[in-house]
C-alpha cells in the first residue's frame, strides 16, 4: 500500500474513534431492541421460558380484537383532545397577553414553565392528595366557598376520573405550549400590528388576519407534539389512578405494561407496542408532509 493510502486510512480510523462510543451504545440499546420487538411480536413468550413458541400474526389479531386495548386508545384520545383544545387555547391566550409587553411578563414566563419541569410522578402524587375525597384540598375548598354540593370522588368516580386526570395533564403541559407560542408570536414584525391598527382593524380581526396566518406552522407543530406527547401519557396515570377505576383511565402504555408484567405475555405486549408505534408514526409522517408543504408555499 502506498504511504498516502495508509495515512488516509489512519485518518478515517481516528475519525471513527469520535463516533464509536455513540454508535455502539445506539446499536445495543436502540437498534437491537427495535428488531427484538419485531421478533418477539411473532412469538408466544412468558419472558422466562427458553422455548418461545412462534405464533405468526396471532398476537396482532388478538390485539386488534381486544376491546380494552381500544378503550385505552380512546381514553388517551380523549385526554389528547382536551389538551389540543383547552390546554393549547389557554397557552395561546397567555402567550398573546405576555407578548404585549405587559409588566412582570418575565416573571409570568418563569412561573408558567414550573409545572413542565416537574416529573409526572411528583405532579400526579401532589394532585392525588389534592383530589382526595375525605381530606383533599379541593373538596374542602368547595365546602368552604359554599359549593359543598359539588364535592366528588374525583379519582374514583368512573365518570370523572378520566377528566380529573386530564386536568392534571393539562396543568403540567400548558406552560410548554405557552413558551413555543410566545416564541412564535415574537417573530411577527411589530409594524404589521401597527398597520392593522391604522387600517382600523379590531383586535379580533388583527388576530384572524395577522396572527393566525403567521402562526400557522407553529399551531401545527404544537398540535402534533401535543398529540405525540399526550397519547404516550403514563407517569401521571400511575401516580393518580393506576388505570382505574375499572378500565376508566387505562391508556396504551399502562396496557402494554400490564400485558408484560401483569400477565407475562411479552409477545402480545410487543404487538401492542408496534400497533401503537405505527399509529404515532403515521401522525409524525403527516407532520413531516404538511410542514414540507407549508415551507414550499
Amino acid at each position, binding site marked *: 500500500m502506498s504511504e498516502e493510502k495508509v495515512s488516509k486510512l489512519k485518518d478515517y480510523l481516528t*475519525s*471513527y474513534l469520535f*463516533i464509536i462510543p*455513540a*454508535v455502539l*451504545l*445506539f446499536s*445495543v*440499546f*436502540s*437498534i*437491537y*431492541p427495535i428488531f*427484538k*420487538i419485531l421478533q*418477539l411480536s411473532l412469538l408466544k413468550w412468558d*419472558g422466562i421460558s427458553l422455548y418461545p413458541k412462534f405464533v405468526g400474526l396471532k398476537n396482532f389479531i388478538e390485539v386488534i380484537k381486544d376491546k380494552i386495548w381500544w378503550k385505552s386508545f380512546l381514553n388517551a384520545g380523549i385526554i389528547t383532545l382536551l389538551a389540543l383544545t383547552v390546554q393549547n387555547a389557554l397557552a395561546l391566550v*397567555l402567550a398573546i*397577553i*405576555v407578548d404585549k409587553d405587559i*409588566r*412582570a411578563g418575565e416573571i*409570568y*414566563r418563569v*412561573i*408558567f414553565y*414550573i*409545572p413542565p*419541569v*416537574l*416529573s*409526572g*410522578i*411528583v*405532579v400526579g402524587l*401532589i394532585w392525588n*392528595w*389534592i383530589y382526595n375525597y*375525605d381530606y383533599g384540598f379541593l373538596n*374542602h375548598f368547595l365546602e368552604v366557598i359554599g359549593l359543598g354540593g359539588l364535592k366528588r370522588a374525583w379519582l374514583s368516580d368512573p365518570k370523572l376520573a378520566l377528566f380529573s386526570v386530564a386536568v392534571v395533564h393539562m*396543568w403540567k403541559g400548558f*406552560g410548554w405550549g405557552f413558551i*413555543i407560542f410566545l*416564541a412564535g408570536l415574537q417573530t411577527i414584525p411589530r409594524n404589521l400590528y401597527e398597520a392593522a391598527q391604522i387600517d382600523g382593524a379590531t383586535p379580533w380581526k388583527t388576530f384572524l388576519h395577522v396572527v393566525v396566518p403567521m402562526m400557522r406552522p407553529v399551531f401545527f*407543530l404544537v398540535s402534533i407534539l401535543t398529540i405525540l406527547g399526550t397519547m404516550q401519557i*403514563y*407517569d401521571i396515570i400511575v401516580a393518580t389512578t393506576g388505570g382505574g377505576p375499572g378500565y376508566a383511565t387505562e391508556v*396504551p402504555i399502562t396496557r*402494554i405494561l400490564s400485558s*408484560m408484567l401483569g400477565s407475562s405475555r*411479552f409477545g402480545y405486549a410487543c404487538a*401492542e*407496542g*408496534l400497533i*401503537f*408505534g405505527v399509529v*404515532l*408514526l403515521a401522525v*409524525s409522517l403527516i*407532520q413531516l408532509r404538511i410542514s414540507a408543504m407549508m415551507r414550499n408555499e
Partner: protein
Amino acid sequence: MSKILLKARFEKVKVILVSHLICILVTIACIFPLVWMVSSSLKTQETVFKDFSLIPKSPHFKNYLIAIKEANFGIYFLNSVFYTATVVLAIIFLSSMAAYAFSRLRFPLRSVFYIMLISTMMIPIPGIFIALYVLLNKLHLINTRIGYILCQINAGLPLSIFLFKTFMDKIPKELEEAAKVDGCNKFQIYWKIVFPLSRPTLGVIAIFNTLAVWNEYLLAMLVFSDKSLMPLQRGLMVFYGSHLTQYPLLMAGLTITTIPVLIVYFFMHRYIVSGIIAGALKG
C-alpha cells in the same frame, strides 16, 4: 376630542387589568399545588387530615428527618444525584465528540451514521422498554446501576448530537485552520477549540438531560427491584404503594425531589427557553 382620548386610555387600562388578572389567576394555579405540598409536609399524621391552614401553627420539620432516614429518601436522593451526574456528563462528552466528527471530519458512511443516530428522534417507539427489559435481563444488567445508566445515556444521545452538530456547523473554521497549521491533531482541536466554543449549546443540553434523567420513572420501575439502587421517582412510588396514607412523609419526599429541580430551573431558565424552541423545531 379629549373625551375620545380618555375613553381610549380607559380601554387600554381595562385591557391591562384583565391581562394581569388572568395571569395572576394562572400563577396561583401553578404555584398553589406546590405550596400545598410543602404545607402538608410540615403537618403531623394527625393534623394533616384536619388542619387546612397553609402555614401550620407548629411546623413539624421532623418529617424530613424521618423521610430521609427511615423512609429511605436519603438513599433515593443520593442515587438520583449519582445517576443524573453520570448520565449528563457522559451525554455531554459522547454527543459533542460525535457531533464534532459529523460536523468537521470526512469519513466513509458519515451521513449514514448521522441519520441513523438521529432517526429515533423522529420515530416514536412506544414499546421499546419491553425489549430493553429483555436485553438487560440477558446481559445480567437488570437491577444494576450500570444497566440503567447506559440506557439513559443512549436515550439522551440523539437530540444532544443533533443540537451540538447544528451549533458546530455555524462556528467559523478559521480558528481550527490556524490550530492545524500549528500542528494540532483532531483530538486537540476538538478539546481545545470546538468544545469550549460550544458552551451555549452545552448549557441547553446539560439542563434538558438533567431534567430528563432526574424525572425518569418508567425505566427505573422496570430495572430496579433493590431499594438501595432506586432513584427518587421510583422510591416515591414504592413509598406511596406501601404507606398509602402517610401523607406528611410522602409530601416531604416530594419536596425533597422537587427542590433541586426548582433550583436548577431558576438558575438556568434562559437555556430552557432556547432549548424547547430548538427541540420543538427539529422536525
